[in-house]
């Protein structure tokens, strides 16, 4: 999943997982039902009971119809049974991401910049742009929230793992790298700096 560009915080303990979900603004929670500590059903009920709207995908070996119905009725957004194909999991995650950020099309376009989220390919004016995994994750996140001002801490939380050493400088440097690769004399600026607030990805005026 990291290779696919996601930043992943994982735990095998139910209590810890619930704490993670409450403490951080995750884009998606992948929830196993059979967890030590407290089980997935309880976590699901508590999160939805507290008003959390984080997209939740249940990933479990419990494949009976009644289990799937129960999970979806308790508030899960999707249900995938084991064994599963990794590609299918990734595709379902991308669906939940698009839904979260109200993006219908798997290809996000901002001016002449296109991000094919299914293939993780970026082009500008039809020309392919090679990005590192981190650069892609940053651009993808800005694109999901295109037009909005995204703070450095929001960027950090979404593209870095919980256990990383935080630094706003790192975000600034990666913005600089992205600009260098996606912008130029004949490529108008798409990433705008909002002093003291953050960055946004939007078509030039």
């Amino acid at each position, binding site marked *: 999943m*990291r290779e696919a560009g996601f930043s992943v915080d994982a735990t095998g303990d139910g209590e810890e997982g619930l704490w993670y979900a409450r403490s951080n603004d995750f884009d998606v929670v992948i929830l196993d039902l059979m967890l030590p500590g407290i089980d997935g059903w309880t976590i699901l009920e508590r999160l939805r009971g507290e008003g959390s709207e984080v997209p939740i995908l249940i990933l479990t070996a419990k494949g009976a119809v009644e289990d799937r119905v129960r999970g979806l009725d308790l508030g899960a957004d999707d249900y995938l049974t084991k064994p599963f194909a990794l590609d299918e999991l990734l595709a379902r995650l991308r669906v939940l991401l698009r839904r979260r950020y109200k993006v219908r099309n798997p290809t996000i376009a901002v001016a002449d910049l296109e991000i094919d989220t299914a293939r993780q390919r970026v082009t500008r004016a039809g020309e392919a742009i090679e990005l*590192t*995994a*981190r650069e892609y994750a940053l651009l993808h996140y800005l694109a999901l929230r295109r037009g909005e001002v995204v703070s450095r801490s929001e960027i950090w939380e979404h593209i870095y*793992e919980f*256990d*990383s*050493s*935080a*630094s*706003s*400088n*790192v975000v*600034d*440097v*990666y913005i*600089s*790298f992205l600009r*260098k690769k996606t912008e130029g004399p004949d490529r108008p600026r798409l990433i705008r700096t909002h002093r003291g607030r953050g960055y946004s990805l939007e078509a030039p005026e």
Partner: protein
Amino acid sequence: MRPPSLRRRLILGVGAALIGVVVAFSATVLTVAHRSLTSGLDRSLEAKARALIGLFTYDDDTFEFEYVPALSPEFQRDEAPQYFQVWINNRCVARSRSLAGGDLPRSDGALELPDGRPGRLRVVSTNRVRVDHEADGPPPFKLTVAVARDDGPIAEPFQRLAALILFAGLAFAALSTLLAAAVVRRGLAPLQRLGKDIEKLSADALEPRLPDLVALEETGALVGKLNDFLDRLAAVRGRERAFSSDVAHELRSPLAALYATIEGALTRERSAEDYAAALEEAERLARPLISMVDMLLGIARLERGGSAEPLESIDLTELVEACWQSHAEEAERRALSFVNVVPAGLSIKSRPDMLILVFSNAFKNAVAYADQGGDLRAEARVDGEGLVLRLSNSGCRLNDEELALVFESFWRGDKARTRAGENFGLGLALVRKIMDQLGGRARAKGEDGRFILELSLPAGGA
């Protein structure tokens, strides 16, 4: 189960060695003595054989043996007799009465005598005998005389000698082992005292240091090393205590200001604008605190070790330039100039996020502490061991002692710590930790009024 004892090992070792030496020495002495005694006996038998040869006379192809038995009672007696036999050209011509018609072997050495006693035999052959008239050439015969007797003359003294040596050897070994035990006990006494002194130490009581036993080469070296270790441990404990105190100190002032801002806003009903201003002020005060905590967490995570970040090929010139941009505004405010002479196209395989943290903190430090209107410079070279990046700034006022402390957490050049704000003295500590994680090294030095931070990375990348 009792652990092995050094004292027991030493005593047993010394005792076994002494016993080994005694046994070897005794065996040598006994062997030499036996050979000497045997050789003496053989010489006496040979003399007797030659004396018997001297009794032979040769004349006109006949021999005359002028042997008078009464003159050689040793060959006649019934009790422990001696034996002789004579051959001329392999034909027995005479034998002692004691042989009783039997034969002696014709080779030297040990043998069993006809009466069963162990004995020695000596054989002498010659063709030189007394002749009555002048002969033409040597007589055409070979005269062989064998004389044998019991080995009593050597057995008895040899047994006495062996007993004496055995007794002396055992006594020597026993006394030596006792002496060795006493010496070992005395020799190990300093170690036992050392053990007792170490027992008195604890994590919170590392004084006094262990007594300096330099009079003894081995324990002197050991105690020296232990005391060095205790010094380092005490320094770590001191830094731990100082760290807790430093964290509390650094947090107290901004937290107090933050609290005062919030408390002030809540004292009475205020306008929306006043609340917004208070919140903005609170956010401004909280931001450096979050930054400090993030850096402390970063240092702690690095000390735990292990980074999951994959290696990537990084353009160093671009990275340095990008990291500089975050500090360009502050540098402009302080009228600082920056020269980037990192060679274009220089790349390295490393972990980009970690390097960004390194350079960002290095630049932050340099911009904060360079003199107003001064300059910063970034340069790099590649040598046989890897990449060396130098970031220097003008306005260095640190002496050698202070330069050695720049990587310590919360240490800052200005002792009064008046230049607070976002400079908590953690940046270079984080730099060093990250460089250690990357398999590289961070060094600081002062040259010609410049502070130089030298970052080395291995050639293989990290």
